[in-house]
């Protein structure tokens, strides 16, 4: 079924197709229309699901943990400060190994209050044990939410999965989406079968104290699960292509990388913008390619290392800052390339708090990097340096 809608509504349809049993969410700001649309679908009888509106995001995740522990398919949605408020329970969901899927609409963190897009919210939850996927189009969001349940519930993984997409650029913009048929989704995503659950007939204890004798072993098993998730993500993407006929890449989405001397690495909607920049740079004669990171956790360490081998210049775009070092994606790409690539790796921190970054900005900054004009590895290409400085070649902020 084809429809033209905003990404938040598209997610609700993907959740319906995934036959989710329980949705728990805080329905007020920074919540998005994902939950509105799900409650409408339930209300109109289009979706057989229990919706629990709770009083905070902390409670939303607590209720979701409780629901998932009873062995049902569980889903939630949040954004920015809501995600931050869940922080403690994100560790709990991953630590007691509960499969569930949550979408996070990527927004900047305050202060100052800013509801626009960057990746700071989810990057700040990087080390909670959740699988983190990033999408770049409405169609990919719909397909990835369905894939996310497969990944999360795979016996080799059994970790919660966070599907991230950019606020406003994707969340509130309209685009055409081809929703898969229910029978195809059912073939791809069988009913959830849990290996354990809370059950009055067979009582058990989970999430209780773990002494120093065992704690490291439990944490190691989570690291193993993340490592296993690489293959599971690949297989899920392949089988989705076979059954439903669409493919958005596995851990990486590659564009013109094979003959490229230079590479742009990015996540989310800014990667779509980079694709246009790549094509423009190609026209100018620069052999540039694009690697869009779909899976930030697990990180595609080997794929990035293989891709960077023999490359001359690599530009990593970050819509986030790990204050005190640089962009989070940049540090991961650099560490993956260690000992494997001689490329000069540059970081562009840009698009924070919803600042628009056009393909022209990306193309210009990348060209400067290729020509060796950048003196420092970490650059802020859209930063206003003084009152005479236009923030971009587009002149997005007029001189007052």
């Amino acid at each position, binding site marked *: 079924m084809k429809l033209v809608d905003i990404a938040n509504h598209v997610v609700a349809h993907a959740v319906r197709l995934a036959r989710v049993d329980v949705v728990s969410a805080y329905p007020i700001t920074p919540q998005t229309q994902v939950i509105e649309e799900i409650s409408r679908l339930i209300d109109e009888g289009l979706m057989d699901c229990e919706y629990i509106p709770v009083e905070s995001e902390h409670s939303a995740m607590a209720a979701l943990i409780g629901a998932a522990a009873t062995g049902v398919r569980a889903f939630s949605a949040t954004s920015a400060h809501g995600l931050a408020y869940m922080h403690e329970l994100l560790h709990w969901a991953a630590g007691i190994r509960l499969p569930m899927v949550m979408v996070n609409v990527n927004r900047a963190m305050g202060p100052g209050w800013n509801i626009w897009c960057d990746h700071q919210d989810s990057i700040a939850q990087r080390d909670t044990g959740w699988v983190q996927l990033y999408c770049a189009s409405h169609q990919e969001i719909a397909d990835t939410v369905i894939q996310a349940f497969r990944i999360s519930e795979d016996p080799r993984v059994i970790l919660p999965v966070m599907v991230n997409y950019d606020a406003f650029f994707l969340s509130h913009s309209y685009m055409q989406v081809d929703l898969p048929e229910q029978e195809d989704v059912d073939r791809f995503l069988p009913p959830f079968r849990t290996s354990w659950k809370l059950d009055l007939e*067979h009582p058990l204890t*989970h999430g209780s104290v773990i002494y120093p*004798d065992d704690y490291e072993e439990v944490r190691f*098993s989570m690291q193993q699960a993340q490592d296993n998730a690489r293959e599971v993500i690949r297989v899920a993407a392949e089988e989705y292509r076979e059954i439903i006929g669409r493919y958005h890449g596995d851990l990486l989405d590659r564009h013109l990388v094979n003959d490229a001397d230079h590479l742009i690495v990015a996540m989310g909607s800014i990667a779509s913008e980079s694709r246009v920049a790549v094509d423009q740079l190609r026209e100018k004669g620069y052999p540039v390619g694009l690697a869009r990171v779909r899976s930030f956790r697990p990180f595609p360490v080997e794929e990035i290392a293989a891709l960077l081998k023999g490359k001359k210049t690599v530009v990593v775009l970050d819509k986030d800052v790990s204050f005190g070092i640089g962009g989070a994606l940049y540090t991961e790409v650099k560490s993956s390339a260690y000992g494997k690539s001689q490329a000069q790796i540059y970081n562009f921190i840009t698009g924070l708090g919803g600042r628009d970054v056009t393909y022209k900005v990306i193309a210009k900054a990348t060209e400067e990097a290729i020509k060796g004009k950048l003196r420092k590895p970490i650059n802020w290409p859209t930063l206003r340096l003084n009152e005479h400085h236009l923030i971009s070649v587009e002149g997005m902020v007029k001189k007052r």
Partner: protein
Amino acid sequence: MAELPAWKNINFACIVFEPGNAREYLTGDWRSLRPERDDSKCVKCGECWMYCPDAAIYQDERGFYAVDYDYCKGCGICAKECAHGAIVMVEECE
């Protein structure tokens, strides 16, 4: 020291599948002070039994309130609350 299982052999996410096995863990070995009752002062009022936060005091067959040293952590609340001074805390190492 007993051999500990490798990471693969630990219950998934450290789930405890046998309910009620907290009983096997004897918290009495946390104790550094031991409560001791003087039968000549005890009036069997049961105040210590009411106050014990670990339910480690029980009434014995003679009606006295005895301490279950397997689970008594030696907090001393019983000795503090006893209105008749019948319970004293004694160093475990003595």
